[in-house]
Every structure is written in C-alpha cells, then in structure tokens.
C-alpha cells in the first residue's frame, strides 16, 4: 500500500492536472470518466491521466489515497477536486475554469 501511495502522490504532484479514469482520454471506458475528459478537452488544457483498469493496485490505491470510493477523480496541483458530478457542476458554474486559472493552468479563452 505504501508503494502505491508514493506513486500516486508523485503523480498528483508532478502533473498539474491529473485525472484518474477508466480507459484513456481517447477511449474512455466509462461514461463518468468520459464526461470529465470531455470537459477537460473542451477547455483545451494539457492534462495527464492514469487508467485504473490497467492496475488493480492503482484502482484500490487511488480510492484510499483520496478517501473517495469512485472513479474518475481529478487532481489539480496536487489537490483533490472531485469526481464526475463535482467537476461537471464546477464547470457549469465557471468555478473549474477559475480554479485552473488561479493555479496557472492555461485554458481556452472563455466567452
């Protein structure tokens, strides 16, 4: 457990926008993961992702690392942002864009 925690910790610290998802950004294998990818792609930002379906250790590890039982999970600058519902609500309210900009992440010009 310690190893996977260290790996995840390293991933969320070294990637400004890090998405733990099922499948890949080009081939999401779950509708909820797909929704988050769509939003990130819409905002035209660079993000990294990890496919939890490739590793059962990661799949369980990320749940306990974040204390969050479901996938997807989005991290910005090492901070847990939320799952699909929260990311969608924040995007619709403009809060996600604000959070990203505040953290120095370049997104597509709005409006």
């Amino acid at each position, binding site marked *: 457990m310690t190893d996977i925690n260290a790996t995840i910790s390293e991933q969320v610290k070294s990637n400004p926008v890090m998405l733990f998802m*099922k499948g890949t950004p080009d081939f999401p294998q779950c509708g909820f993961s797909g929704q988050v990818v769509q939003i990130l792609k819409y905002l035209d930002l660079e993000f990294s992702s990890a496919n939890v379906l490739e590793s059962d250790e990661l799949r369980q590890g990320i749940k306990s690392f974040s204390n969050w039982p479901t996938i997807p999970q989005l991290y910005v600058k090492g901070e847990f942002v939320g*799952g699909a519902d*929260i990311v969608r609500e924040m995007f619709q309210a403009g809060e996600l864009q604000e959070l990203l900009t505040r953290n120095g992440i370049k997104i597509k010009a709005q409006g």
Partner: protein
Amino acid sequence: MGVEQSIIQKLNAVFEPEFLELEDISERHRGHAGWREGGESHFRLKIATRHLASKARVAQHRAIMDALKSEFDAGLHALTIEIINPEKVLQPPTGE
C-alpha cells in the same frame, strides 16, 4: 433488505433530509464495468439536508459516501449525487 432500501434508510438516519429521491439507473449501464444482473449497482441521488448546508462540495459528497461505505464495499458501483439547497425545499410555494 435490498441496496436501495438500505441506502434510503441510512441517509434518512444520518441526514434527516428535507427531500430525498433515489433512482436505480443500473439498467442504463447494462454491460458496463460494475454492472451486475439484478441491478442496484448504479444510482442517482437527489438530496436536500440542513446537515450538509455549510459544507463545501467535496465534503458534502464525502459525507454521503462515508455514510454508505458498507454499500460501496459490497458492490455499489456508481452514485450520482445532486445536492439541493434545503432552503429551496422548505420555501412555501408563492401564490400569485
């Protein structure tokens, strides 16, 4: 007791909601990861409760999922959560 009843019972006990609506949407996810015969794997929840009103979004969702930890451990796969402001539920309808 089914998963649906168990979720409702726990949320009622912990959050004393002003409004609670739970829908089994498993059938829409037939064949997807986590789906199982008989349903009760994917749910959509709408809830209004004073107990969560002062919390931030992540804390609200976490509190709900914490209350349902044994359901998640037992195979509950996805829970779409919509939190409604309890003030909006409590407001009496305004007659014109």
